[in-house]
């Protein structure tokens, strides 16, 4: 097998074709040039027409790693009765026989070509030599969901969004609070006068002071806004400063990334945050610092929303959310962060709509709690998400007040929904909105409704109601939502039948793994040849996290938060949880990046991607993510003995 070369024009270029194949195929693409060349020189090319079975489960000795150069292979198992069950498909760049080679033994699965297929075959010995030298190659085939490569795929997604035009990058994720804080803080002793505080601020040219007690501990904060208030209400300048301070102090550790500081400020509506080192205040950070650090900031948007005095003014502001998201994606923020940010902005917008409306309509006859459900409830909103909301009203005995509340809230909810629609949140096609009398109930009625769903689940209704179980409190009395939650949690935990119905939800959509380049794409309709990331990928994982969390009585609603809480319990193996976590983040990220690109092109963001538009690495990672979904589905099947195909 010597290589003759009369007079090679380009030494080392051979076998260029095979070499370039390995260079773009995982896990080989990460190997150094020498190993790749050795591998390429040992590879052979084989052709098998469609319908050729080349491995038989449990019988065939695997002599080579088959890498699909062009074509497709289906992998299946056959039980004693001869029934075949499809396990997976391998498209271009996919490998067959890897696990058997790494772990020894005969073929794990039967393999048959479904298209005319060209293979690049790596003989067993050559493959094992590579595995010995590069353990990660072995791990790639042995391990289910290779985290190392997910990280790479994330990088690619980041790069892809990096090509979007955007001047002035943000550094929210990259910089730490300690890097931009002002220090040390300006302190004022307890008992000092308000006037003294104003003088101190003026001298030091700062907007806030920390109040310290005689032991030196920081008790609270006084800002220029507080001083304004004292004058507005005509308070004596001699009054002690602690009357107007805000206490206790919210602080942020100096090692926190600026993103977290910003989140804290937005959540609590603060503009000044003391920065701590080992629990001791060492400086201050203000919203202004963060605004200065970056041009187009979530904080700026946030402030404009809260400063808006009429509802109509909010419509335009909400259209600026994508710009904020773009900046974050570009910075490499993970989907979990971004959706949280979007949620905070949307919450803020909703809060402002409600606040302004309450001002317009006058005080309500009874208190309420706005409920956010579905992706809003899970804090997983992306671009434009349909509204999913409801409202809880306080229980009242007096029929007169009850009627008044009915009239008031009908008008109130209809207006809120209408404003939200104008601000770019389309109405829920299923009518799950607070303006729907079905979902505008008193607390007692809500308890009954949930109880009915839980005790007498009707599959149709459970499907429909699943998103209700992701509820969290919006504006209003959060206590109502808390009470409802603590009422239904024990009910669900006792009702395994209900949990089974929820689990069945997760099994609705099979992972789209198929022969056509590895993916089943939608066969017809508007999204022909595309893949629905939401219904086939994101929803099943959310369903899985929901049912297990409810089973365990976990009140957290976000999917990633639920997964984290679940992993502490041990019912699901940590490995599987880690895989699900990675898969979910990746799917969310992919969806975000695609929606962002759609938004950039002026299209309406949707959940469909064309597999052809993905890079090999993305395709591969996506496929693995779908495989993880297959695993959680079988986990639920076993847990709840759901023997539905």
């Amino acid at each position, binding site marked *: 097998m010597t*290589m003759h070369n009369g007079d090679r024009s380009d030494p080392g270029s051979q*076998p260029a074709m095979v070499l370039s194949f390995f260079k773009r195929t995982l896990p080989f693409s990460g190997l150094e040039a020498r190993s790749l060349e050795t591998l390429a020189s040992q590879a*052979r090319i084989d052709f098998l027409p469609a319908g050729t079975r080349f491995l038989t489960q449990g019988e065939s000795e695997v002599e080579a790693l088959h890498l699909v150069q062009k074509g497709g292979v289906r992998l299946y198992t056959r039980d004693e009765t001869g029934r075949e069950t499809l396990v997976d498909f391998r498209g271009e760049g996919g490998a067959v026989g890897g696990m058997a080679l790494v772990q020894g033994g005969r073929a794990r699965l039967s393999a048959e070509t479904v298209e005319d297929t060209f293979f690049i075959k790596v003989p067993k010995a050559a493959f094992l030599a590579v595995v010995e030298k590069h353990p990660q190659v072995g791990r790639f085939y042995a391990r289910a969901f290779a985290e190392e490569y997910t990280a790479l795929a994330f990088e690619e997604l980041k790069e892809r969004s990096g090509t979007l035009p955007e001047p002035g990058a943000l550094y929210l994720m990259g910089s730490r609070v300690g890097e931009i804080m002002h220090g040390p803080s300006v302190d004022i002793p307890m008992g000092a006068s308000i006037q003294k505080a104003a003088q101190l601020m003026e001298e030091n040219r700062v907007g806030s002071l920390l109040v310290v007690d005689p032991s030196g501990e920081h008790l609270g904060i006084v800002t220029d806004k507080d001083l304004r208030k004292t004058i507005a209400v005509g308070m004596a300048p001699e009054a002690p400063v602690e009357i107007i301070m805000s206490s206790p102090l919210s602080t942020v550790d100096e090692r926190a990334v600026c993103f977290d500081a910003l989140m804290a400020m937005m959540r609590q509506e603060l503009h000044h945050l003391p920065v701590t080192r080992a629990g001791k205040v060492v400086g201050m950070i203000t919203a202004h610092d963060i605004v200065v650090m970056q041009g187009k900031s979530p904080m700026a948007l946030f402030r404009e929303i809260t400063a808006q005095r009429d509802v109509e003014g909010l419509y335009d502001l909400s259209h600026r959310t994508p710009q904020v998201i773009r900046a974050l994606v570009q910075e490499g923020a993970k989907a979990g962060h971004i959706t949280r940010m979007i949620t905070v902005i949307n919450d803020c917008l909703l809060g402002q709509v409600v606040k302004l409306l309450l001002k317009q309509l006058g005080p309500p006859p009874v208190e309420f709690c706005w409920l956010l459900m579905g992706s809003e409830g899970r804090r997983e909103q992306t671009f434009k998400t349909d509204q999913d909301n409801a409202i809880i009203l306080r229980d009242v005995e007096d029929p007169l007040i009850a009627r008044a509340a009915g009239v008031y809230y009908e008008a109130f909810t209809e207006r809120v929904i209408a404003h939200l629609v104008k601000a770019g949140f389309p109405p829920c096609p299923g009518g799950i909105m607070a303006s729907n009398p079905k979902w505008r109930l008193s607390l007692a009625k809500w308890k009954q409704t949930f109880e009915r769903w839980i005790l007498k689940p009707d599959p149709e209704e459970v499907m429909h109601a699943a998103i209700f179980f992701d509820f969290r409190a919006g504006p209003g009395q959060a206590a109502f939502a808390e009470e409802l939650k603590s009422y239904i949690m024990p009910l669900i935990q006792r009702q395994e039948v209900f949990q089974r119905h929820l689990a069945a939800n997760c099994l609705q959509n099979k992972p789209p793994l198929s022969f056509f380049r590895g993916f089943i794409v939608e066969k017809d309709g508007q999204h022909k040849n595309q893949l629905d990331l939401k219904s086939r990928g994101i929803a099943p994982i959310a369903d899985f996290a929901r049912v297990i969390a409810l089973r365990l009585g976990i009140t957290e609603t976000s999917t990633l938060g639920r997964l984290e809480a679940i992993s502490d319990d041990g019912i699901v193996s940590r490995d599987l949880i880690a895989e699900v976590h990675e898969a979910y983040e990746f799917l969310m990220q992919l969806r975000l990046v695609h929606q962002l690109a759609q938004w950039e092109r002026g299209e309406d963001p949707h959940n469909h991607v064309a597999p052809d538009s993905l890079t090999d690495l993305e395709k591969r990672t996506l496929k693995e993510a779908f495989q993880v979904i297959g695993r959680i589905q079988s986990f639920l099947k076993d847990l709840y003995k759901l023997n539905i195909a």
Partner: protein
Amino acid sequence: MVRNPLSITERIRGAVAGLISGPPAAPLLAKNHAYFQQLDQSKPLEEYEFAVVDTELTGLDARNDEIVSIGGVRIRDMELDPSDTFEAIVRPLGDMPKTATLVHRITPQQVKDRPGLEDVLPQFVEWLGTSFMVGHHVGLDMRFLNRACRKVLGAELKNPGVDTMRLAQVYEAELWESYYDRYTLNISYNLTDLTERYGLPAFGSHDALQDAFQTAYLFLFLVRKLKQGGIHTLHDLYLAGRSWRWYL
């Protein structure tokens, strides 16, 4: 998998045959001639070696034009071995016409310092060994190679040739018969077009080695697809294309 292109007995028989059939025209071609004098066609295809060859020329006139590059890749066990290749650029005796340069992108400058055919050809013959020669419209390549061999080595190659273009024509006829479809008369049997038609992995064309690779893929495809995969021995392959001739 059996890897035994030439059993010991065959080799001995070949050598003996060579002795009996009188002195070969050139020592280098002795083995070549001996081997092909008694070709057993009944063995599985896996036991033969195929060298897929492509040449780039200064023109199509076998009398006056010359070879400017040779590319080849081996198929053994009916698998393509991408590491067993031959590639050479040859300095022609005459001028390199512009029209030819435009086709294969080899410039007069590039060939200036290359060895002449008299140096390259023995290396090629040695590499070729006792493989069947496979090529797209292989007759043309063989005419040029044989003319060169006669001149440089004093005898022609005896390696039988398999023409992938013929195979493709037979395959198309088969498709036509089995599908009762209207026979497409305007199929282009150009290598690039067939590659696209059959959905084969595509290479850049008009580099002798790339074209050899491309032809090798086409060959693997056609051999497995012809007769619905019923081609097992060399004889089957011969029968599949009764209408063709072996370039013996």
